[in-house]
């Protein structure tokens, strides 16, 4: 796979893409600082689900966000016109701009992109509309709710809240790797000069539909999510949003912005194999595409943030694919879903933020709830305790239903050449 942008251009500060601010809503912390603390401490977001009625399910833990008040970051739009996922997305976008120290007046004069990934869009609202329909018939559906269910609002409303008109607002619906897709889209758009900045990430709200589906498939863990553990029983559904501010290194330097990490490249492919089962060869191939695009060798990768759902099938397939690419001694491989649950479209965006924070602060977040590593997985998942580490290159895996793989590679920002 060739890349048209020449090597000479890669060294140009205008075509290097850096991360300068994050908006975070997660079950272990709101905002980058609290999130970093939670990651370092190995905090768990697991708790009984309260967002929807779980009567009749034998177990119903999830990583719900409680007390986060996204409306505190929403100043211009009527909150009742926004679904739960859109509220997370909009609030995280504002938080990312503020954390990056970017001046909205300057952004308004530039061309930008807002790309938000999602699995379920406003399925939380759709669940409620179905509830109304079952109780009172379809004519009784609430028009206010019906008006907010289109998932394109996840990106459009963020632009409207921030008063950004000269932006391409895109909602990417490639399920559970959508956050990485969004980051990749922003990366390409900045490198090509198509846009000056990009707010990229993912957002999802927990919903009955998806919980029930995973429950029926036998892939909801009864208590907590234990990725790579011999006794792992599956995922916990989660929710939240992660939005990253992407800009060129030249732009970040010009305004004296703090650089958390550099986006070195990314890769995408499709298994074209099965709707829900991952394919080892294809996942391995996606890692190779990502590393090649990033211009790094496998042995240069210091850490992998795995898709790591904690299901039997994912963790063994993903570990084997990692061995295919990295050989017998792969880099340490952690699963943030042990702490955050599976936040669906937000998952790879929150994981990318976690990777950048790990690089910036010099630590590796742990895989919590871990007792005994599955011999079929054969990776060092950094069980239960974070460790200090100087990280130069980190790979963030995102795999999804539909065989939609997307992997982002981040690097430590070093002044001058990498």
């Amino acid at each position, binding site marked *: *796979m060739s*890349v048209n942008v020449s090597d*000479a*251009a890669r060294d140009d500060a205008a*075509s290097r893409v850096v991360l300068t601010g994050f908006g975070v809503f997660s079950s272990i912390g709101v905002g980058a600082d609290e999130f970093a603390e939670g990651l370092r401490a190995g905090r768990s977001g697991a708790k009984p689900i309260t967002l929807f009625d779980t009567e*009749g*399910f034998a177990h119903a833990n999830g990583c719900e966000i409680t007390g986060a008040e996204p409306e505190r970051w929403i100043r211009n739009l009527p909150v009742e016109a926004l679904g739960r996922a859109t509220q997370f997305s909009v609030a995280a976008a504002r938080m990312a701009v503020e954390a990056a120290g970017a001046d909205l007046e300057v952004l308004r004069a530039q061309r930008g992109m807002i790309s938000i990934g999602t*699995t379920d*869009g406003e*399925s939380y609202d*759709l669940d409620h509309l*179905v*509830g109304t*329909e079952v109780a009172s018939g*379809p*004519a009784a*559906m*609430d*028009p206010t709710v*019906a008006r907010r269910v*289109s998932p*394109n609002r*996840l990106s*459009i*409303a963020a632009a*409207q809240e921030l008063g950004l008109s*000269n932006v391409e*607002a*895109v*909602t*990417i619906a*490639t399920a559970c790797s959508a956050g990485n897709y969004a980051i990749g*889209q922003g990366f*390409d*758009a900045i490198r*090509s*000069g*198509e846009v*000056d900045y990009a707010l990229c990430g993912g957002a999802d709200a927990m*919903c009955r*539909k*998806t919980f029930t*589906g995973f*429950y*029926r*498939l036998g892939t909801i863990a009864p208590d907590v999510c234990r990725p790579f553990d011999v006794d792992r029983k599956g995922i916990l559904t989660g929710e939240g949003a992660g939005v990253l501010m992407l800009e*060129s290194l030249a732009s970040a330097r010009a305004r004296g912005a703090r650089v958390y990490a550099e986006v070195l490249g990314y890769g*995408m*492919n*499709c*298994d*074209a*194999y*099965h709707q*829900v089962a991952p394919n080892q060869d294809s996942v391995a*191939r996606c890692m190779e595409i990502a590393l090649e695009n990033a211009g790094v060798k496998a042995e240069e990768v210091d850490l992998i943030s795995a898709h790591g759902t904690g299901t039997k099938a994912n963790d063994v397939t993903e570990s084997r694919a990692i061995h295919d690419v990295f050989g017998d001694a792969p880099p340490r491989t952690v699963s943030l879903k042990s702490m955050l649950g599976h936040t669906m479209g937000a998952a790879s965006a929150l994981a990318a933020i976690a990777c950048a924070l790990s690089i910036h602060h010099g630590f590796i977040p742990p895989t919590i709830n871990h007792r005994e590593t599955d011999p079929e997985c054969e990776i060092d998942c950094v069980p239960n305790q974070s460790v200090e580490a100087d990280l130069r290159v980190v790979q963030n895996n995102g795999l999804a*239903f*539909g*065989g*939609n793989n997307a992997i982002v590679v981040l690097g430590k920002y070093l002044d001058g050449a990498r």
Partner: protein
Amino acid sequence: MTLSASAPATATRPVITAWSAVSPFGIGKDEFVAGVLAGKDASSALDSEEWAGPDDHACVVPGFALREVLGKKGTRSMDRVTGLAVTAVRDLLRDSGDRRTASDEETALVLGTTTGSAQSMMDFTRASLVGERPFYVDPSLMPNAVMNCAAGQCAIWHSLKGPNTTIAGGRVAGLSALSYAGGLLNSGRARTVLYGAAEEFSNARAWLDHHRRGEDSTGALLGEGCAMFMLESADPTGSDGRALAEVLAVESRVYFGDDLREALAACVEGVLRRGGVDSGDVWAVSASGPAGSAGEQEREALAGRFGAEALDRAPSMAPIGDTAAASAAFQIGSLLSVAEQSAAPGGGVALVSSVDDNGVVACAALRLPVS
């Protein structure tokens, strides 16, 4: 080498080299071309045995019983929007024959949608709510309740292993998909991109639309279908003559409240500038024409800039109803239909305008081939 965001793009412009359509005019591109050029009304009375929505008429794809169209193998759990997309991609690959030189790994798929299948999503929740136990749902239907189902199934059916992207773009989805597809070519992530957009008619969609519609758009007919296009980098020598249209520029913008007209005007100027198009070269302008005030504002903005004649040269999309996510893709198809009939002057530029009342406008400039 880096361009400022406001400069015209100098990278190779992509070209459309083949297309397909599954539309209210029928299953097939030829049916679409004939129907759209004739301006034939594609609406029909809905069979109340089959449909239980609020509307008694709609523009559905005639004869689209997907197990008859695609066969019984692998279609037992397939939903309608997936069937429409798999069919359109099948026809696209069949009609482009051996012209695709890109391998399966080098071929990407980009599909625009509103929300996948609202029917599949809502049915799944309903099964949980009304079943004897809340988890008595059919697990084989779960992938349908996720928005990337159609794109993933297109990849499985047609062995497309390059990037596979679903864009939930609402009415502008066809142009968002085109913009994204161009980015994949420009960044070297694919050599050939199959892009387009799909929308299904369903009871769930009809009810959602019924409740979200304003008073200014009551009575609008819903439509459905899928149009797919093959996008490739232009042969640098320009000698192959395969191009059905050259994509000069695509842009979208967000509007707030009632400033649709200003945002669309700015978007159009951006496309003209990026595409290096003189407004005098704009021969036809296709408006998305949603019912209600959004459509009126769109038409006023475009007619004010290019004249009503330019709008009238593009076929009306009214005969196929509001095809939502598929609308902009069908607009592109309608302009290619005109070009196919040699009605366009050689080298003329056609604009596609699209508006979504959630607050986004988009525009693309296409250069039609020298006939």
